């Protein structure tokens, strides 16, 4: 009986050897595959417990997001100073719900896995410090951001405002209201996290939508800047005579297109048409120019170019432009023309920059963990390289915008700053005449040496309802941004 027992003994040995061989295969050969599998939450949790880098402003190094040490297992909790104000920029960072905004776009730097942080990680390993993530320095100017955000929330507006340095493309402010508090989503308390998520996602006001870059709207009269640029490039001048008729019949239809309020245009020159935002001349211009020329100019303003700042920007578009009627309506920024507020900003910013569109950029530089070491600095970049209009025409258009600003009502005007602007009051919805319009304002200042360009949209008339116009609702916010940037405020 001992012989078969010895054989059973050998069988037992074989079974254990098989197990050992198999765990060798799993834990040595295949280990990396399993470790790095996207469904392996351990890697994610490991990252979440690393000291994440900060998000700071290039202005005085103001901190928008950093971490506080906690005594729970994740060790560090994300903390946002003025969370709702900067949420459209920073996004959120949540164990349960992942991340968004800059937190997602620059995750590799912030969580420390970027190869550029390798040397630092190595030295951390040697010195025994826990590895830390790198930091991201933003172009945002907190003064502008807070001025705009506070004004918009104080008035209870739903909308967005973006400001940038027209010469460099650096985004100085990006506000979307109503907003949400990313601190609640970053909480390590899963109940807080869950409740906040449900509250934000169930809210009909959609606080988590970044209206500045993720939503497109009909631009209304602000689009006339683009049509004007195209018209100037095609031979018109400020004194080119235009029709002052109160309305025009859309070719091929019985529908008429009227000026705002059905009035006649107070002037008869191109400059007057922009200054008073007369619809009839611009509809006619668009019709005369045709779809191709309009599209060419639009492309040079950046419409149709996929854009990442590095947050993904929703594409703006002109629509089909398949008939004269469509061209007429599109000429005043209606029908199928849809722009993001950022794209609308680029209309005035490009004019401010002498006709050359700059690539909008949110990141100034990427820094090491202790903010002293610079990994990468971003320099200004031209968007397409082809100017949307010549320097001379840009100067002409600036003049026309100064005249437009002179006709624009609303608060925030200061004698010492010369603003060039254009307002818009865009109809939308299924019953446009009965739906409060979107109020637009896009501007730059000082007109002579532009330091800041801004675009503002207040959805559905803000607090003025059907009577809202770009001037009465949106202009004040744009001017607040300009004032904040240029001092005083």
């Amino acid at each position, binding site marked *: 009986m001992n*012989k078969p027992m010895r054989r059973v003994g050998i069988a037992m040995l074989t079974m254990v050897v098989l*197990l050992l061989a198999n765990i060798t295969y*799993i834990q040595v050969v295949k280990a990396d595959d399993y470790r790095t599998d996207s469904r*392996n939450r351990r890697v994610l949790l490991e990252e979440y417990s690393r000291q994440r880098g900060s998000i700071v402003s290039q202005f005085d190094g103001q901190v928008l997001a950093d971490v506080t040490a906690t005594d729970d297992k994740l060790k560090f909790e994300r903390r946002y100073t003025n969370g709702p104000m900067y949420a459209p920029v920073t996004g959120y960072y949540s164990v349960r719900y992942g991340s968004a905004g800059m937190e997602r776009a620059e995750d590799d730097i912030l969580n420390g896995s970027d190869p550029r942080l390798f040397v630092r990680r190595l030295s951390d390993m040697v010195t025994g410090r826990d590895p830390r993530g790198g930091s991201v320095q933003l172009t945002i100017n907190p003064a502008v951001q807070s001025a705009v955000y506070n004004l918009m929330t104080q008035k209870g507006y739903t909308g967005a405002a973006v400001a940038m340095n027209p010469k460099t493309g650096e985004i100085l402010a990006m506000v979307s209201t109503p907003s949400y508090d990313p601190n609640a989503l970053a909480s390590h308390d899963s109940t807080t996290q869950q409740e906040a998520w449900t509250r934000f996602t169930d809210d009909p006001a959609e606080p988590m939508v970044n209206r500045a870059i993720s939503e497109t709207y009909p631009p209304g009269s602000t689009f006339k800047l683009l049509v004007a640029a195209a018209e100037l490039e095609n031979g018109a001048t400020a004194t080119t005579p235009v029709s002052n008729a109160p309305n025009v019949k859309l070719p091929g239809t019985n529908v008429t297109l009227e000026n705002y309020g059905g009035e006649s245009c107070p002037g008869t020159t191109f400059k007057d048409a922009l200054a008073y935002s007369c619809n009839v001349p611009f509809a006619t211009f668009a019709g005369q120019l045709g779809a191709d020329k309009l599209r060419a100019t639009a492309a040079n303003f950046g419409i149709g170019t996929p854009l990442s700042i590095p947050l993904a920007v929703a594409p703006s578009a002109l629509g089909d432009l398949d008939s004269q009627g469509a061209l007429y309506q599109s000429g005043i920024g209606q029908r199928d023309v849809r722009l993001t507020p950022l794209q609308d900003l680029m209309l005035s910013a490009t004019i401010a920059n002498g006709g050359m569109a700059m690539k909008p950029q949110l990141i100034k530089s990427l820094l090491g963990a202790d903010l002293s070491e610079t990994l990468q600095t971003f320099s200004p970049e031209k968007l397409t390289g082809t100017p949307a209009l010549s320097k001379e025409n840009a100067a002409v258009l600036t003049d026309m915008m100064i005249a437009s600003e002179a006709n624009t009502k609303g608060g925030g005007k200061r004698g010492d700053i010369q603003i060039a602007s254009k307002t818009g009051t865009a109809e939308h919805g299924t019953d446009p005449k009965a739906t409060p319009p979107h109020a637009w304002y896009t501007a730059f200042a000082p007109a002579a040496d532009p330091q800041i360009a801004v675009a503002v949209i207040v959805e559905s008339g803000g607090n003025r309802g059907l009577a809202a116009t770009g001037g009465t609702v949106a202009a004040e916010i744009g001017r607040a941004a300009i004032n904040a940037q240029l001092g005083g405020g």
Partner: protein
Amino acid sequence: MSQPPLSDQAAALYASNPPREMPTRRGTELAMLGFAAFIVTCAFVLVQANQEQELSWAIVWYGLAYLGLFAVAHAAVRRWAAYADPLILPCVALLNGLGLVMIYRIDLANAEEATRSGENFAADAPKQVLFTALSLALFLAVLIVVKDHRTLTRYGYTAGLIGMVALALPAVLPSSLSEVNGAKVWVKLPGFSIQPAEFSKILLMIFFSSFLVAKRDLFMIAGKKVFGVELPRARDLGPLLIAAAVCLLVLVFEKDLGTSLLLFGIVLVMLYVATERAIWVLTGLSFFIVGCLIAYQLFTHVQQRVANWIDPLATYSDPGGGYQIAQGLFGLGTGGVGGTGLGAGRPEIVPESNTDFITAGLGEELGFVGLAAILVVYLLLATRGMRSALAVRDTFGKLLGCGLSFTIVMQVFVIVGGVTKLIPMTGITTPFLSYGGSSLLANYILVALLLRISDAARRPSQKPRPKQPQQQAPLAEAHTVMVQRPPAGGNATGEPTA
């Protein structure tokens, strides 16, 4: 091994200067137990340190409970099985201790999760300590009651009957009394519930051993010869076949594939050892393969297990799919060679991390090195058991010891193989490591029996008494001597050559 008759002088010499006896090696056992306790204590401290908790009183309580329990166990072995193998108990203590540490560690993780989500949380570690205490009480009882393992042969059929009834009980009981998480293997009583199959396997092993030992010779010679192999007569084989078939049917009915596989393996091995015919293994394996194919055709849960085995990542998000195995593999992969360190991994992510998948957690935190060491401890435990079985003199002891030792490795193979995707996952307990009362109780009984057999194997023969003047009755007046029933394969007449 009969002693040559001694002369009176030799007897006197023996009394004054006895030959060297087999050492009991209890000191070795104590030292090894101390070593196991040291490892377990270090493991506890590591868990606490890595969880960034202060060294709390919990560690003292768990430590004292652990030390107390195994001190009692050691004392009991000293008293009632003095010659038992010195490594068996320390191996068990080490495995049990590591299991306790892991259960405690997963408790910490779950408690944190529970406080975060505001749920109530009941820790498993104190219950496991309680189960360990109960198990050791049972262990003690077995050592005391079963003074000689050969007495068990008397209860062979009884054990077989009880074992089969216990095995079948959950299948007969309504689901409300027998089903937990889809496995109909429980008997739920008010206050506690048990998995009778865990105990059945030991009872059935006792039955198989006594049955096979009794019928051994018949198996080997009495049947017809087919293809050069003597087949036993059906009436000799009958009870065994019926028992095996009933076991398997019951288990298929209860969907407990793991225990089914385990019992099948044990029956096969015991049959092979008893008859010394490899043909049994081959026949058994062919039946097994046919059975597997039929089961695969008939049962969706078997198909599911196989699909999860072939590629757990493909069935990752299916209901009842490979999520659990995949998470286990992710844990093992993250642990890699060296492991994350005790308390520094995330073993709680794997569902059932403190029962079926406890080895995945150990593999994650202790790495390949630690998991391999644990497997080697199991192997050591089983080979020591096997060594005792080889050395014991009676065939019943041999067969039972062999079965018990093989059971340990077979359990480990079925569960660890399942967790590491070597074989389809079938879900049985990991002996001594995983959380659960039934498994622990049953495995401690198993170890008590092994110790008893090993004690018998190493205990020196009875000291020869000085020769008494024998009253020799005249042959003609001598009554017929009733030869003692051979409960253990004719031990009385010496060991049959194997």
